[in-house]
């Protein structure tokens, strides 16, 4: 098959349409096919939990640090989970260094919503002493290489990192009232649900392609991200504008997302099992 390199630079949309007519994409994938997904857990030893996820070229790393803090007055038995997505200028030329841009902030809000909607961790599990002490989990998600579909990769990295988190046991000394952290005795975090995000790009108002690359995202007329959990429930339908879709097309996206959830769950379970206990 001829590659048409000049057409790709001069008329990228026309170049893509030629492939879409044959129901495939320039990198050889089908419209419903994901890129090769790899995950590496526990690579950052200074963090309490970490994971590196690669979706094709898109590389995202998540590090979780646990600190102790006083819980809020109106939620005395709840801890905090604070996610932050960073898109540094390292990952792509489209991002300049400086304060976080709109895309990074929107991605941070998306991850915060996924955590809240799916109840991935019960905040009550993060409480150490009611009203006095609770864990704060700072989840830093940093993109190292931006090639599209940052939301799926970030959500996956977050899930994998949280599964890797080991919290030290904390006891409160009755006499002094101070907390004592025992770093030798660690307990894994209880993950209640496993939310998985699946993103689609809308082409020419009708075609839906899964897991878009950066080039495909730029040419797309809209995006949809569906987050499902273990029981096939919807944790999030995120469609920020873009081409309008019928309810039936949305249903197709959800069906594909449910299938993807099974694939991702299998991958995470395999990786967790392969980690040798310390």
């Amino acid at each position, binding site marked *: 098959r001829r590659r048409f390199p000049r057409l790709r630079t001069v008329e990228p949309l026309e170049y893509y349409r030629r492939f879409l007519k044959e129901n495939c994409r320039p990198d050889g994938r089908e419209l419903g096919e994901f890129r090769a997904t790899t995950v590496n857990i526990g690579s950052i030893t200074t963090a309490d939990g970490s994971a590196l996820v690669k979706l094709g070229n898109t590389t995202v790393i998540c590090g979780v640090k646990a600190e102790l803090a006083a819980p809020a007055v109106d939620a005395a038995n709840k801890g905090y989970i604070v996610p932050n997505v960073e898109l540094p200028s390292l990952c792509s030329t489209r991002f300049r260094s400086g304060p976080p841009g709109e895309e990074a902030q929107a991605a941070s809000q998306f991850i915060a919503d996924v955590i809240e909607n799916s109840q991935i961790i019960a905040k009550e599990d993060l409480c150490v002493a009611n009203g006095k002490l609770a864990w704060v989990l700072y989840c830093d998600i940093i993109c190292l290489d931006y090639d599209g579909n940052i939301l799926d990769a970030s959500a996956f990295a977050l899930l994998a990192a949280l599964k890797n988190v080991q919290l030290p046991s904390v006891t409160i000394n009755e006499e002094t009232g101070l907390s004592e952290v025992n770093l030798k005795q660690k307990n894994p975090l209880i993950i209640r649900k496993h939310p998985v995000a699946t993103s689609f790009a809308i082409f020419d108002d009708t075609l839906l392609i899964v897991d878009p690359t950066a080039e495909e995202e730029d040419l797309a007329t809209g995006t949809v991200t569906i987050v499902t959990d273990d029981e096939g429930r919807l944790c999030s339908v995120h469609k*920020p504008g873009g081409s309008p879709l019928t309810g039936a097309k949305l249903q197709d996206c959800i069906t594909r997302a449910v299938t993807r959830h099974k694939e991702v769950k299998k991958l995470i379970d395999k990786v967790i099992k392969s980690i040798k206990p310390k």
Partner: protein
Amino acid sequence: MGATQEEGKMATEGGGCCLRPFSCEQGLLSRPDGSAAFLQGDTSVLVGLYGPAEVKVSKELPDRAALEVLLRPKVGLSGVIERSREQLLRRTCEAVVLGVLHPRTAITLVLQVLSDAGSLLSCCLNAACMGMLDAGLPLSSLFCGVTCAIDLNGVIVLDPTTQQEQEARAVLTFAIDSTEKKVLTATTKGSCSVVEMQQCLAAAQHAADTIFQFYRDSIQRRYSKS
């Protein structure tokens, strides 16, 4: 240009399947090219629109208008939530505005939250659409925002108040387009089953008819006066 005020109501069909009384005032600000204030129950949002106007070279797009949305909360500084909503509103407006008719220009929407008593995002969407109508921007279709809440018993409540939103299991906001009632924008809070989502979508599409009729009536009334 005098301000015009319109009121609309959705007939009660029983239960929570009706919208709160809503009203709109257009052309109330003198400086922006278009302005509108949309009230849904006690929630109100004011929008001012500038454009198509001069654009900074760094932001200019060679083939279409560059759209920018600024959302200011009622209290405090804009945070991450406002950025996320701005992105949502911007991409919704970009889907309907015929930007190719005004290349190398900037269209700016500034939304100010006046009061928040639930269903804020759908009020912002409605205000943005009415503002664009007031400014006379070329649009391929109109859109309206509808919020649905699924309470603990599984009952769908349209246009929920703040309390109904807090007690609900899930809150879904849809932007429906006027030509084919397709979903332009969707955002959800909380978790729900797929069937419930489809039911909410159907309810939102049904409620959208009332809002579009209201848009039609208010524009008709405005232009038949002058």
